[in-house]
């Protein structure tokens, strides 16, 4: 069985007395070390699926298993990075990075060393004693990435992590995350609604559609990192996704002159 095994997974909510299906019939297998993008428009259940795998909000139909164990609650072995960074504003940058190490029983001095090491990795060692509010959005997200990596997780979940950033910072961070994660060999599940971002980052893209949220198709991206956003292969895959999302304009076959 694969590392993450999702079988007939579904999630329904009761909303105003009526049942609402957020996610239906998802079957997906993810291998260790893969970079998976969950891609789709809002309401397609991509965040619901992520929260289910991360354990914040488990599915109520079917099953989601990591390493053979059913997911029922968040685990300290898998870390989630949020769009709003999830930094604690009352802690300095370095104290934020130490957060995950505190419940692991690591002593104070060692915690600081580890935190410094990961701050260096995201090139923020000079901001260790700043507070989050003093940093830009991109820097905050890098702190969140350092904090996630510091606990040496098996899986990193990212819920539209670059959604609040401007386009240029976003592209930079995309490179950073590829750089860092290829070295650390983590399994990454990355939610996004940006097609280009998905094609740029993912080993495989899970394309999802709404009403009800379900997987429309899985596309393998056979291009090496770092990818050229303007290359033919890149555009080809982008095209495939447009196809799956039925966003392509139908070509008119009949012509009248």
């Amino acid at each position, binding site marked *: 069985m694969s590392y993450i095994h999702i079988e007939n997974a579904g999630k329904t909510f009761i909303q105003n007395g009526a049942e609402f299906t957020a996610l239906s019939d998802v079957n997906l297998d993810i291998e260790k070390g893969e970079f998976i993008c969950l891609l789709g428009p809002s309401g397609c259940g991509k965040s619901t699926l992520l929260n289910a795998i991360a354990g914040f909000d488990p599915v109520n139909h079917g099953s989601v298993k990591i390493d053979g164990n059913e997911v029922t609650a968040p685990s300290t072995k898998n*870390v989630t990075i949020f769009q709003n960074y*999830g930094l*604690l*504003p*009352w802690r300095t940058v370095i104290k934020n990075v130490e957060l995950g190490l*505190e*419940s*692991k029983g690591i002593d104070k001095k060692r915690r600081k060393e580890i935190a410094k090491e990961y701050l260096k990795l995201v090139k923020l060692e000079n901001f260790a004693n700043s507070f989050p509010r003093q940093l830009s959005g991109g820097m905050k997200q890098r702190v969140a990435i350092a904090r996630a990596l510091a606990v040496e997780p098996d899986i990193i979940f990212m819920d539209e992590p670059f959604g609040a950033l401007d386009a240029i910072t976003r592209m930079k961070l995309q490179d950073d995350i590829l750089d860092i994660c290829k070295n650390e060999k983590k399994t990454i599940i990355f939610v996004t609604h940006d097609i280009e971002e998905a094609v740029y980052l993912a080993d495989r893209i899970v394309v999802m559609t709404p009403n009800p949220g379900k997987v429309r198709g899985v596309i393998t991206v056979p291009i090496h990192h770092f990818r050229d956003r303007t290359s033919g292969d890149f555009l080809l895959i982008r095209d495939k996704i447009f196809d799956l999302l039925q966003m392509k304009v139908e070509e008119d076959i009949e012509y009248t002159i």
Partner: protein
Amino acid sequence: MKKLLSIKYVVVSILILLGIWQLAFTVSDYSSALFPSPLMAIQALGEMIADGTLIASIAASMYRFVIGYGLSVLIAVFLGLILGSLPKVFNYVNPSLQLLRPISPTAWMPFVVLLFGIGDLPAIVIIFIAAFFPVLLSTVSAVSKIDDMYFRVADNFGIRQPQLMWKVILPAAFPQIANAVHLALGSAWIFLVAGEMVGAQSGLGFQIIDARNNIRADILLATIFVIGLIGLLLDFLIGLLEKRILKAWGGEQ
């Protein structure tokens, strides 16, 4: 420079206040024993400082205030953090709180005096009640408004109770709690005087009653002035403390 400027405002403002008082004294035909001038009040103040009654009164009042207000804030914040984390329990507590909250602390005064007699306790109880409800309710509301994301982050990194309380809940709710604690200080100080006027034989509130009984309006007004001054000072000090903690916790300065 900014500090200097604000001192200028304080001096001018108080001079204007004294000027109005002096003017009222000059134009009114009340006997100066009933309505003394600022100068007479200042002389009475000197007299009180010299014979030690002022210091004794302040000490008695401050003792009650620190105990009443301190205990009230500690218990209210503690209970508020717990009740805020247990919204289902709070639903059962809230109606009673809402019933007790609008009752003026002074309404409890006769009951408290009957129960505990005259002394330190009635004033302490009144101060306690005055600060308790606003701090408790603000703390509960502050906790219930904490962004869910903080709890997810804590959950993800394996931070559970009791650490969750002081690592996440308290600092996240702190700005709103501090605001309530600050406001409650003012009302607690106000009710201290009321409490001492009825239920004590010492302190600043009692001194006002004592001055009235001796028809010493100058002492009476001087005491009122001291009460205002201490209230201002306490407010300033707690504001300083609030700012310092907020700054240590990364707040905007």
